[in-house]
């Protein structure tokens, strides 16, 4: 004979202990706060949920739990609307080996009724839900992560070889505000690698050309065009408007300026540089990890450091390294994974090999060590090798 819904529910109640709303509220204030998983459907969640709860609709619970709860002993409280679906969900987790699962008696309805705080989430529009569906399906991103990206602001220095692919992917990913700093215009010789521009925009400002491409790709992105060269008079104000900076500059003075300004404003810097077949990438997290000057305390003289314009660069190398920058930026914005902070990634396109070097904070670093006197200097003169003159920092 078939078991009725009531029978199944009664069986579940015998296996899964229930927790009362008042007890959960107290636990959430304590240091032993359990992980709360809300198994209701999207439209129910959108109308409000317990603060800090994670949303996993009942139908996806078994497939998505791995990205959310990893330890079988960790305390988990499941809630639904009234306390029935959460019991059945509890049985599933119990069968998967989770040993500390409880079901919230009365569910979110009783939580709300009893006057406890709840959060009404900002949500993706139906269009956004479709556009970013492949992101939302990744447990580490989810709708919450996608909303975070839409709320993020990234500043790109340079809309050239590195800036083209990184801006392109950040825009596609739905980073809500992208600032583009570039004072240059599109030249025919750029199009072999700077894929965000096009033939009909030769002669146009690069930042403006990139804005047009991004707006054609994703209407969610607001592009701020900064058609000037970043220098010590404008860099701090610029950086303060953004969550992180992607360094796609093509010269040493700008790279050292960005490093100092990132330290002053405590803005994370996603670094990459390229030449011929070789690319470098890292992440500089101010005062938490090494900075660019821990890695390269002094710039090479100009004759020892050819630029891409002289030495050449493989077009697709820009795509690889710029994409790595976009990847690291997205991870930092979402607070997931391990970034390249403390590591220098070296890519050799000719041998198709990746190498990693360790970078440590230099206790003597002239920029970020405890005793360092961090001030802007005349970066152009310093990088041109005029040491005597440039050792004295100039103030902004």
């Amino acid at each position, binding site marked *: 004979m078939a078991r009725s819904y009531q029978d199944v529910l009664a069986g579940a109640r015998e296996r899964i202990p229930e927790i009362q709303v008042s007890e959960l509220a107290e636990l959430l204030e304590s240091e032993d706060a359990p992980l709360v998983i809300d198994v209701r459907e999207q439209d129910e969640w959108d109308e409000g949920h317990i603060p800090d709860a994670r949303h996993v609709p009942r139908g996806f619970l078994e497939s998505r739990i791995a990205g959310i709860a990893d330890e079988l002993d960790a305390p988990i409280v499941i809630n639904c609307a009234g306390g029935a679906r959460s019991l059945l969900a509890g049985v599933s987790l119990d069968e998967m080996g989770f040993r500390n699962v409880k079901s919230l008696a009365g569910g979110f309805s009783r939580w709300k009724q009893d006057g406890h705080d709840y959060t009404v989430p900002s949500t993706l529009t139906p269009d956004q839900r479709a556009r970013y569906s492949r992101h939302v399906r990744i447990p580490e991103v989810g709708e919450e992560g996608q909303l975070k990206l839409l709320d993020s602001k990234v500043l790109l220095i*340079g809309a*050239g*070889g*590195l*800036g083209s692919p990184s801006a392109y992917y950040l825009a596609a990913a739905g980073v809500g505000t992208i600032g583009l700093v570039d004072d240059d215009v599109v030249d025919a010789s750029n199009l072999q690698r700077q894929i965000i521009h096009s033939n009909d925009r030769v002669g146009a400002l690069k930042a403006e050309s990139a804005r047009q491409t991004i707006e054609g790709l994703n209407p969610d992105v607001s592009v701020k065009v900064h058609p000037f060269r970043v220098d010590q008079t404008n860099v701090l104000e610029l950086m303060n408007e953004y969550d992180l900076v992607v*360094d*796609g*500059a*093509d*010269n*040493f003075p700008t*790279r050292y300026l960005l490093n100092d300004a990132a330290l002053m404003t405590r803005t994370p810097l996603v670094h*990459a*540089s*390229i*030449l011929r077949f*070789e690319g*470098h990438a890292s992440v500089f997290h101010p005062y938490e990890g090494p900075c660019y000057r821990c*890695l*390269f*305390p*002094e*710039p*090479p*003289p100009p004759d*020892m*450091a*050819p*630029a*891409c314009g002289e*030495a050449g*660069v493989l077009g697709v190398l820009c795509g690889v390294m710029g994409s790595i920058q976009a990847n690291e930026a997205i991870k930092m914005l979402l607070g997931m994974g391990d970034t390249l902070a403390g590591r*220098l990634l*070296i890519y*050799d396109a*000719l*041998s198709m090999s990746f*190498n*990693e*070097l*360790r*970078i*440590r904070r*230099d206790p003597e670093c002239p920029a970020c060590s405890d005793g360092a006197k961090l001030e802007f200097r005349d970066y152009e003169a310093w990088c041109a090798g005029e040491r005597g003159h440039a050792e004295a920092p100039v103030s902004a």
Partner: protein
Amino acid sequence: MLRQAVGGEREVEVPGSTVAEVLDNLYDAHPAVKAQLQSEDGELHRFVNVYLNDEDVRMLSWLDTPVSDRDRILILPAMAGG
């Protein structure tokens, strides 16, 4: 740029029991490298980084850092291209 100074090779094998000895032997075998790595007074340029395996020799014993048979030394000049 360094590769051109050693005849286009990506890796060269050089004997030596310290970083300094390896570099001296490298200069003997490929004199063009010397000017790129050293200043006129014989000091390693500050803008050249030298790694033993994956660690910066500045964090080890600098040029006196001992080197054994299978170690890899990497010479890394800064690049600015973007």
